[in-house]
Structures are given as structure tokens and as C-alpha cells.
């Protein structure tokens, strides 16, 4: 595969991904935005740790894990709410959201205990 064609491939890939993504419903896009924000926050924390050092390691871990945890939980919510998933057909979105809130509550309570 020549260079030019791989570049074309990348371009085509990018465009088709973009157009496919544009078709997703709005509520899923909001969840995706939240996930992106959480991962971005985690990355900032890791960069900060690389600069400053990881001394209160429990604080660093709790910060990063709260971002990663809430991102993962949001992805789980997205999976459960997505109409295209046949497995979660009979799970009401209210129930999915309630589970999401409960898990986030537990997550943040543990984080606050661990933060030191």
C-alpha cells in the first residue's frame, strides 16, 4: 500500500467516521462529551503528577481514578441507554440513570475518603 493511498485511506476513514458519528442521537453525544471531558481531566492530572511528583500518592490515585471511574460509568450508561443495543431493550433509561447516579455516589464517597 503506497503512501498516497494510505493518506487517502486515512482521510476517507476520518470522513466516514465523522459522518457516522453525526448520526448518533443527541443524548448519546452529550454522554460522549462528558466522557471526553473526564478523560481530559485525568490526562491533565497525570501531566501535573509528572511535573510535580506523586508525593501524596493516595491523592493522585484518587483524583485520576475518580476521572477514570466516572468516565467508565458514563460509558456504561451510554451502553444501557443506546436504543441500538438489543440486550438492554427492557431496561428503562430512568433505571439506567438511577444506577449511574448510585454508582457515582459510591465512587465519590470512596474518593473523598481516600483523598486524604
Amino acid at each position, binding site marked *: 500500500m503506497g503512501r498516497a493511498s494510505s493518506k487517502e485511506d486515512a482521510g476517507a476513514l476520518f470522513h466516514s467516521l465523522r459522518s457516522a458519528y453525526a448520526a448518533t442521537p443527541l443524548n448519546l453525544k452529550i454522554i460522549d462529551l462528558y466522557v471526553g471531558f473526564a478523560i481530559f481531566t485525568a490526562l491533565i492530572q497525570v501531566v501535573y503528577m509528572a511535573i510535580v511528583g506523586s508525593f501524596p500518592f493516595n491523592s493522585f490515585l484518587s483524583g485520576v481514578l475518580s476521572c477514570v471511574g466516572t468516565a*467508565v460509568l458514563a460509558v456504561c450508561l451510554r*451502553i*444501557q441507554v443506546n436504543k441500538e443495543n438489543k*440486550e438492554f431493550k427492557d431496561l428503562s433509561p430512568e433505571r439506567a440513570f438511577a444506577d*449511574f447516579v*448510585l454508582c457515582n455516589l459510591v465512587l465519590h464517597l*470512596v474518593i473523598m475518603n481516600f483523598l486524604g
Partner: protein
Amino acid sequence: MATMPILPNMPALDLIKSFKLKTKQQELLIRVSILCLVYILAFITRLFSVLRYESMIHEFDPYFNYRTTLYLTQNGFYDFWNWFDYESWYPLGRIVGGTLYPGLMVTAALIYRILHFLRFAVHIREVCVLTAPFFASNTTLVAYFFGKEIWDTGAGLVAAILIAICPGYISRSVAGSYDNEGVAIFALLFTFYLFVKAVNTGSLAWSLASAFGYFYMVSAWGGYVFIINLIPLYVLVLLITGRYSMRLYVAYNCMYVLGMLLAMQIRFVGFQHVQSGEHMAAMGVFFLLQVFYFLDWVKHMLSDTKLFQAFLRITVTCAVAVGAIALGLGMLSGYISPWTGRFYSLLDPTYAKDHIPIIASVSEHQPTAWSSFMFDFHILLFLFPAGLYFCFKRLSDATIFIVMYGLTSMYFAGVMVRLILVATPAVCLVSAIAVSATVKNLTVLLRSKNKGVQTGSTKGSSSSKASSKALLDQSQPFQKNGAIALLFGAFYLLSKYATHCTWVTSEAYSSPSIVLAARGAHGSRVIFDDYREAYFWLRQNTPPDAKVMSWWDYGYQITAMGNRTVIVDNNTWNNTHIATVGRAMSSYEDEAIEIMRSLDVDYVLVVFGGVTGYSSDDINKFLWMVRIGGGVFPVIKEPDYLVNGEYRVDKGAAPKMLNCLMYKLCYYRFGEMLTEYGKPPGYDRARGVEIGNKDIKLEHLEEAFTTSNWIVRIYKVKPPNNRW
């Protein structure tokens, strides 16, 4: 639904008939009553030692747990969590709050508080003694629900019954065995059940529950490492076999992140989930899942497969490269610690013998013999492969899990005797599937003729199959007889299992170890309560700040019952300290007194079985003291104590053996003792020989106390002589 008769003067038979329940309710009643009986049975069968002796704590480790629970109930959780114990490991002390698994103590303290709230004024010791049977009963309930999840309610019931009396579990959860495993096996099975339920339903609530179950397991036992490695392995197997689904993603991710965070709250575990090599599998699978499902999502969005292939190639190479670099950097820089000796010896069983004699010396860490398997499992041993066959016939996410759990735990049970306990729930569940499926098939065969005529039944699908079978089976009239015979055979086997389990529990696993029993000359029972006699002598006749040196086996008991400071105890966290004690015990008296003075030792305690024939005494353990001492101090050489490779204590023993401190302390004044009719004085009944050095003189120690059967002997270290 019972229709109440309107006329009050109906005959009695009609009254009873009118209460006839529908079949579904009958079934529910049977199930509930079976579960109640099993619950009670699991509790009762563990009470042998309480009935025969008294309600006391057994063995060695439970005494430490009891002491910490006592401290917890007296001083509250904050003091317990931050407790620094200066009464053990003199002069180092031990950070108890940070080096124990608090689950057991907190559970017992909670039960104690609830009972006191309900105005039952029980002593904490009673709660401690009965915690393990209580949790064994709870385990049977969890086994029922787990069996129901994997197969059906019949398998659940059989699993509950099998695990209620299985000797492999009883061995560590008998009343009085107040040890981590009593609670941990409940937590293990509970966590596995919740996780399998989460994978089956894909609900975040069940995953959260399994994270809490994992937290309870981490707080209870160091064996949680098994869970955190089995579950990622299971996820990997599901991914490879193509059974992955969205439910798996939800279940594993929620459980891993929340479980990891909760687990790090236990001080003893600390940051191991991100720093230890034993936990890296879970993290690796976590990242693998993210990549895998991300690729799956992109594939779903892209309609063109060629583009997707390109994307796939790029992402996979990037992910693998990043992962390999991160793992390599972590291991090389030492940030990710390698597998610790305790768990490494499970993968490489010869490792401990060569490198870590302390781990090799524990009797529970020896490889398992077939007789142990038969003793602990009985018929489950051949029902297990049968159950595996049934599981493979009807593969689902849940049965794959139980197969993996069974196979991995059986491998580890073969490596170390102690781990038969971890294999027991898996073996019981898989065997239950075999029993339940077989009995069900046989009874279907039995009822097939009737079902062909009747149309109404509860098990609809099986009856339709049976009716079609009935038409086919007209040609084999002996099938019903064969089924009856096989059913009788199955019931005979199960009753033999019940008899065996009860016999094993009564004979082998109900001894408190701290109180010994034997048959006297006329068949009457003789009780040797020497250990407690010695500890209470220590408690009442020595100054409160006295320091006692003994082998590490007795440390916990001395601190708990004797209430005195010890040099080393069963925690064995400091090998050098133990080696110092081993060196002191194996040296001549003049060298040993130097070591004892440097450690401020006031009393020395040894256990001697020569008079009673008790074989777990210090002379039989002496070679391990030499090995451990010699491992750190090369001046102690094992061949010095052996004659032609043989370990002897009689006239032909090595001179170093005849004059070392342990020999002198055990056999002091024993040369005058007549132990058995027709044998010379100084005949050691445990070794079966007449001892070699009968004229022992002690220069720096004096005998303080010897118990009534000479089992425990306590010596006082004399202060240095006056210069003049």
C-alpha cells in the same frame, strides 16, 4: 390459595383437603423448608468441639484475631485502626492496624454490638467462637442462589446441602476456629455470585454489589488475589471464545474500578492494586476491554470493512506498543513489584523449599496427597468431572465461570493443602450440577409413562420431551427399572457421603489443638490442659513487663492468654528476628544467654512431648529452628545436629545436639523421670528412645514452672552474677 370452607362442621379430611396448595406453592414450601434445614445443619455439624470440650478458641492464629477483636470492642474502631502493639515482636513492636485484615474482627464486633443492642449480654468470646459456623450457614444460602444462577433451583439445593457438610470447608470453619477463612469463603462465594449475576443481567446495580462483595473479601483475607486474577482470566476467556457482550463490559468495568478503589481503603493492601505484579492482570484486562470495545464500536459505525481493517491495524499496533512499553518500564524500574514469595510458590512449588524456609516449614503449605483429597471431598471427587461434562454440554457465561473457577482452584489445591478450602465451593457447585442433572434425567424417565397421559404439569418443557420419549421407549420396558436402580444407587452414595462427612468432622476437624485428649488405661478420656495451665501461670506469676521467648508458634497464644510480651509470634513478618530466636535455641547455653540478654528475655517457654507422647513438640520442630536460624546466621549448620543425616536424641546423637539450649531445656530433670512401665528412666515417649544426656545442669537459667504433664516448661533467665 386455599378456599376456606363456609360450613364449620365439615369432616376433618375435607378440611385438610381444602388447604391443598397449588404445585408451585408446594414446590416453594419444599424449597424453603430444605433451605432452613440445611442452614441449621451447617451450623450444628460444626459444634462438636463446643459440646465435647468447652466454648473456646482453637489453634494459634485465632488467638490473635480474638485479641484484636477484644481490643476493638473495648477501645473502638479509631484506636483499633491505628493500634501499635508493643507487646509482640519485642523490641520492634508491630503496627497491628496496618498489618491485618480487619474484616473478621469488624464482623464479629458488629454481631456483638447487635446482640448487645437486643439486650443479649453475651461475651465477645462466644461471638468469636460461633462466627465461623454462622457464616458457614450463610455460605450455604449463597451456594443455593449461585447454583440457581448457573443451572436451576435443583442444582442450587444440592449445592447448598453438599457445601453444608463438606469436610474441606468444615476444616477451617468449625466452631472455635476464629480465623479469616471462616468469613472469607462466604465473601468469596458471594462476590463470585454477584459478579456472575452482573454478567448475566448487565445491570450496574449488581456490579456495584459485586464491588462491595470484593471489598468485603479484601478486608477479610489475603486470598482475595485469587478473585482479582480469576475474574480477568474469565473475561479474557469470554473475549477469546467470542461470547463477549455489552453486559460483560458493564459488569467488569464497574466492578474493577469501584472494587479497586474500595480495596485500597484497607491499609494492609494499600497501593498494591496499582503497584504489585499480582494485580496487573486485572489492569491489563481493563485496558484491553477498553480497546476491544472501542474497536467494536468503530466497526459498528463504519460501513466499509476495508477502512475498518486499516483502522484496526493502526489501533492494535499502537495499543500493544503502549501496553508493552508501560509494562516493561514498570517491571524494569521495579515500580511494579514482582510476585511475592507466598504466591510465587503456588506457581512454582519448589521455590519455597529452596529460598524461603519459613513458608516451607508450615505444615499447611505442603503439597496435597490423594488421601487428603479423598478425605476432604469423598464422592465429590468423581462427581466433579461428571459435573464438568454437564457444564460443557450447556455452555453459558455462568457455566464457563464455574468451570474456570473449578479447574484453577483444583490446580492450586493440588499445590498446597490449605487451598483445598478455596476449591471446595467450586467442587460442590459442579458436583451439584452433576447430581441434579442426573437425578432429574432419571426421574423424568420414571415419570415418562404417566406424563404421556396427563397434560398438566409444572415442568412443561421436560414433560413434552418426556411424552415424546415415552413413545420411543415403549420398546425398552426395563428402562424404568434401571432408572429406579440408578436412583437408589445415587441416594446410597449421597447417604454414604453424609456419613463420611459427619465422621470426619467428629474425628479429625473438631480438636481444639490447645486442649489434648487421649484414652486412659481403662478407656476413660484424659484431658491435657497443659497449654492453658502454663499461660495462666505466666499471667499470674510473672511481672507484667516480663518478656517471653518461645518458638513463633506459641506467640499469639502467649500474648492473648498469658498477657505477656513475646519476642516472635505467628505473624512471621520479620525473618531475621525469628532466625535470632532459632539461633538462640540451637546454640550452647553460653552463646544463647548473650542473645537472650540482648533481647531482654526474662522467661523461656518450650513445649515438650516426651512424657505424654505428644508429637508436635519443640524437639520435633527443632530442625526447622536450625534451618531458619542457619538461613540468616551461617554459624548454625544443620549437619552439626545430625548423625549420618539422621536426627537423633539418644546416646548416639551429635554432641552439639546433646548440649544445645533446646535439648537442655526440654530434657532438664527428665533423666530421673519414669514415663513408661518397663522402660528405663528418661525414656522419651514421643521419639521412642532413651535420651542421651540425662545429667543436665543449667547455668544461666532456672526452672520456673513445668505443667502437670510436662508439656509446657517455663524457665527464668537468671540475672548476671555479681562480680564478686
